[in-house]
């Protein structure tokens, strides 16, 4: 899987403008995924740092049809009204463009994404390294194609690294959908609509620590185990790709 992802990241060309048909989902035992992937195969990932010039750090991520841009500002002085604090503050905001979803302006439950992103990143940032100041993370979802939050989280961690914010480790995030008896990694929107359950893990791959985890739907312990293993495995592979993306950006000649 990593090989495929890596190859896609190295030789990226914008996806051809094929008209998407509404694929149908069969919930039989032999499940064909709408984009022809295997059940445990992630979408090809494209990651790039430095997407926004005015920001301290930024990153662009494209996982299949999910396209996200994250810009990081700061550390800059906290608002006057805030009390003195030894540790720095993290402020996250997630928004959708009006054309992100098939129906204009109808964005999926965004109210809670900002705080979810905050919780996922909080544990990885060395907040003590910038007292009295605030780091702002603004994520904009250009196109929503499923597994939005994991993509936002991974992209935000890349942007933080690009901004030179001290991190314990980069944060990689992957979700798994459960449809019938099958576990599908990195689901697309069509699969998310039909899912019976979902599990999302955000982790720091080198430290092997989970910073955020959510589960919905009914799961048995063995299934959770299996899904967690699957996610953690994918996270570590995604982590490697993110690392190589950062290395590439650092070694590129400065202009």
């Amino acid at each position, binding site marked *: 899987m990593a090989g495929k992802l890596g190859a896609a990241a190295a030789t990226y060309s914008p996806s051809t403008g094929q008209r998407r048909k509404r694929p149908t989902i069969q919930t039989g035992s032999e499940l064909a995924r709408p984009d022809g992937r295997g059940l445990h195969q992630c979408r090809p990932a494209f990651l790039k740092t430095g997407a926004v010039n005015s920001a301290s750090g930024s990153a662009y991520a494209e996982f299949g049809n999910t396209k996200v841009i994250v810009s990081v500002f700061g550390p800059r002085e906290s608002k006057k009204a805030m009390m003195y604090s030894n540790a720095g503050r993290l402020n996250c905001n997630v928004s959708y463009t009006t054309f992100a979803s098939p129906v204009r302006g109808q964005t999926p*439950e965004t*109210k*809670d994404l900002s*705080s979810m992103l905050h*919780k996922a990143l*909080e*544990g*990885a940032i060395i907040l003590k390294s910038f007292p009295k100041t605030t780091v702002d993370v603004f994520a904009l979802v250009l196109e929503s194609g499923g597994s939005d939050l994991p993509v936002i989280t991974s992209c935000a961690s890349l942007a933080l690294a690009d901004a030179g914010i001290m991190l314990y480790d980069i944060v990689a995030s992957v979700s798994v959908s*459960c449809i019938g008896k099958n576990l599908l990694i990195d689901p697309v929107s069509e699969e*998310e*609509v*039909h*899912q*019976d*359950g*979902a599990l999302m893990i955000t*982790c*720091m791959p080198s*430290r*092997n*620590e*989970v*910073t*955020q*985890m*959510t*589960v*919905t*739907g*009914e*799961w*048995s*312990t063995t299934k*959770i*185990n299996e899904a*967690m293993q699957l996610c*953690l495995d994918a996270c570590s592979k995604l982590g490697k790709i993110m690392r190589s993306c950062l290395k590439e950006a650092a070694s590129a000649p400065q202009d």
Partner: protein
Amino acid sequence: MVGLSLGEQTFIKGGIDQDLRTDGRKRLTYRPIFVETGIIPQASGSARVKLGATDVIASVKAELGKPNPSYPDKGKVSIYVDCSPTAEPSFEGRGGEELSTELSSALERCLLGGKSGAGAGIDLSSLCIVRGKVCWDLYIDGLVVSSDGNVLDALGAAIKAALSDTAIPKVQVSANAPSDEQPEVDVSDEEFLQFDTSGVPVIVTLTKVGGHYIVDATTEEESQMSSAVSVSINRLGRICGLTKRGGAGLHPTVILDMISAAKHVSEQLMNKLDSEIAAAEACDEMES
């Protein structure tokens, strides 16, 4: 915000290390739980749950609505939580909003199951009246009146109690309506249907303080936490939802360990809660 001196902090942490908490409980013991049902006569069902000094109210209101086109044979359930400033002065104005949305989405995740409705505590297809036309919309409102830690578990328990108190009117659909129009429905004021709440899970929050984890943390204990995991578990011992709170990372094996501990605790909590709900309903019937 809780202001604790270094001494107090060490005292709390030391007590947890020795399995004897400041209020004399063990690490995996809940505070006494107190349930009262039918406290809001205007709602279809309501309950108040007290867990130590934490006091929450949940109400269920059923309204007729239209099913979501993607799921024509299912009703809709939505959960809203409001944090009253009576619980904490900092909830004044918009101050409680952040916590409110966090609690609402955590509860939705824990109680409503996946997007297809599988694994939901409430059988959504039982809320459908006419396929694709009319269904019941359940509005579940939670109100935090007083908070002394572990609000999520208390809200989960209150919603469970409120649902078992809920009576939904029987509905007659006039058979001769043309199929393309909105059918006429007749809502009965005498006959009511009760919910089957045996599938509604309970929420157990394990709070990690130092190297150990505890259930039902008070505000003081919560202020010392590094992270917390809320697991909702149904009667069959299956996991229906999970949320992690707090910034610090956890090792995957620790999470699995916490899940199995939560499973163990949930059995006792479920039995205790069921008997409390039954007692509250008996008491409610005696009065009326």
